[in-house]
């Protein structure tokens, strides 16, 4: 089930990009240091063919991977963050940070929301983008998740959210903390009305995002090796003065402790989701 052997385990947990080399066609794995042919890496869905390390993939790539071709319709893309606090750390203002992330990712925010078909099942889907300020949740991420849950409820379709986030966006202060409440409230309403919510946790899912909508899935699936947890490992080490156990806060650790349903390899994720949606759709319907 767990795809790597004992002596071939990825050591790095935090999300990494492959290291560029002199040749544009080759990169180096930041985990096992072996040279990888870029084309082969892409074909392998951004997973190192040698050591099985999961490099992150962009939100768009993820959508392409999960949603049937030409069926995705984006929703709520018009929302854009504002610098409510006037946050400036002296190096870069928050507004600048947003502008740079927009440039870098081609997105308006750290999540894409919309609807589409997954193996012919109509779903509401949200996919987070780690490269947009660490996938952090500010007002717009919160608002989009909230609206998506309300949309799924109104349309009576299952909801899938793929998380990749370091947590709350501190540049929005208490507004970002309140998004934990808002998203959880909206998801609670959806689930309480019989809605099916599948949460997919990818590397990393931590802090305020893990402690809100990510852990509220009726079914929770994680990618192998993903860093998942509430507090940062460094903070825990400093507070407890204890050595952290091996695999601490990885998907495997969470599976062992009973907090996720399954670890599913990237290449099988769509199939697994399709299977579950199929079971759901074939369920006995009252009404």
């Amino acid at each position, binding site marked *: 089930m767990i795809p790597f052997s004992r002596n071939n385990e990825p050591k790095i947990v935090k999300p990494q990009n492959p290291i560029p080399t002199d040749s544009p066609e080759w990169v180096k794995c930041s985990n096992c240091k072996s040279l990888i042919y870029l084309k082969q890496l892409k074909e392998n869905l951004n997973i190192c063919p040698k050591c099985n390390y999961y490099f992150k993939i962009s939100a768009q790539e993820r959508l392409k991977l999960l949603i049937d071709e030409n069926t995705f319709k984006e929703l709520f*893309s*018009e*929302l*854009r*963050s*504002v610098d*409510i*606090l006037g*946050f400036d*750390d002296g190096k870069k203002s928050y507004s600048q940070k947003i502008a740079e992330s927009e440039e870098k990712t081609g997105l*308006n925010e750290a999540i894409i929301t919309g609807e589409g078909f997954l193996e012919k099942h109509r779903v509401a889907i949200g996919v987070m983008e780690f490269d947009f300020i660490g996938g952090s949740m500010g*007002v717009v991420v*919160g*608002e989009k998740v*909230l609206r998506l849950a309300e949309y799924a409820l109104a349309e009576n379709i299952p909801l899938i959210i793929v998380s990749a986030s370091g947590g*709350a966006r*501190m540049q*929005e*202060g*208490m*507004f*970002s*903390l*309140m998004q*934990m*409440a*808002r998203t*959880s*409230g909206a*998801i*609670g*309403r959806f*689930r*309480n009305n019989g809605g099916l919510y599948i949460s997919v946790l990818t590397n990393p899912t931590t*802090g*305020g995002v*893990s*402690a*809100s*909508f*990510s*852990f*509220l899935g009726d079914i929770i699936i994680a990618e192998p090796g993903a860093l*998942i*947890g*509430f*507090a*940062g490992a460094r*903070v*825990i080490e400093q*507070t*407890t003065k*204890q050595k*952290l*156990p091996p695999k*601490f*806060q990885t998907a495997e650790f969470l599976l062992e*402790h*009973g*907090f996720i349903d399954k670890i599913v390899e990237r290449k099988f994720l769509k199939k697994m989701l399709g299977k579950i949606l199929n079971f759901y759709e074939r369920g006995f319907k009252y009404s």
Partner: protein
Amino acid sequence: MNLLPFEKPIIEIEKRIAELEKESQEKNIDLSSSINKLRKELEEELERIFSNLTPWEIVQVTRHPDRPKTMDYVKYLIPDYVYFCGDRLFREDSAIFGGLGTLDNQTVMLIGHNKGKNTKENLTFNFGMANPEGYRKALRLMHLAEKFNVPIITLIDTSGAYPGIEAEEHGQAEAIARNLQEMFLINVPIICVVIGEGGSGGALGIGISDKLLMMEFAVYSVISPEGCASILWRDSTKAEKAAELLKITAKDLLNFGIIDKIIKEPIGGAHRNQKAALQKVKEEIILSLAEIKAKFGDSKEDLLSGRYRRFQKIASYDYVSSKVAEKTED
């Protein structure tokens, strides 16, 4: 009394008052007019200092050991309090306290973070930093409040959920997430008062409410100023600057519409006059309960949709089209 750095100017006045009092007693002479004059001066000085505190100074006031803690509120507000233990899953976590009792002729469920007054208490209560068990106990007691059909009062005073190995093993994130979700569905009124430190998700974990009140010198923040400083500048000593950036004071949060009301503290802060602070909080909670009752009556549906809408409003965003509009204006 533990003196905060910015409280120094008042030592001198307090010393002079003490001297005069001693002299008046020893020599049996009436110095009350000079003493009263000094007392007035002291009050004015305190007023001056405390109305001009910086966010970082407010953080220090809010962490003051003499500031009333949840236990003090319980004793003062609810003399017949009965507390309950355990999450029914793993263990008792006394970092969060909860139980039933009578407040002003009304049975209430009071749940709060338990910060200690001294080292011994702090070790027992884990400095008010709850493990998942604490959040699960809190939720269990909220469901109990539903069964009794009594309002819930939560008191927030924590630097955050406990960052520990076991806490992670037992699902800290799941416990908080579940509380956030379920508290929107608890069909009795919930009033939350931030009495001290509102530390991030650990505070919010018992903080979903129909009314959110905040003490004048309490703070509520997505991350501690020290934590923010160490992320931004890799230097936790720059916490003072971070405290300003994060906008964590009651005044800021009232302006943002995140809290409903500021509870005024006695002159010089709650740590100088505990009883006055406790009484004020008591009055404000009673007032809020009456307001919720007047607003929603007995309709549980209205109560829950009101709670949902209350949070739905906490958003501030722009539309992409207006960004385009800006560009075309250029």
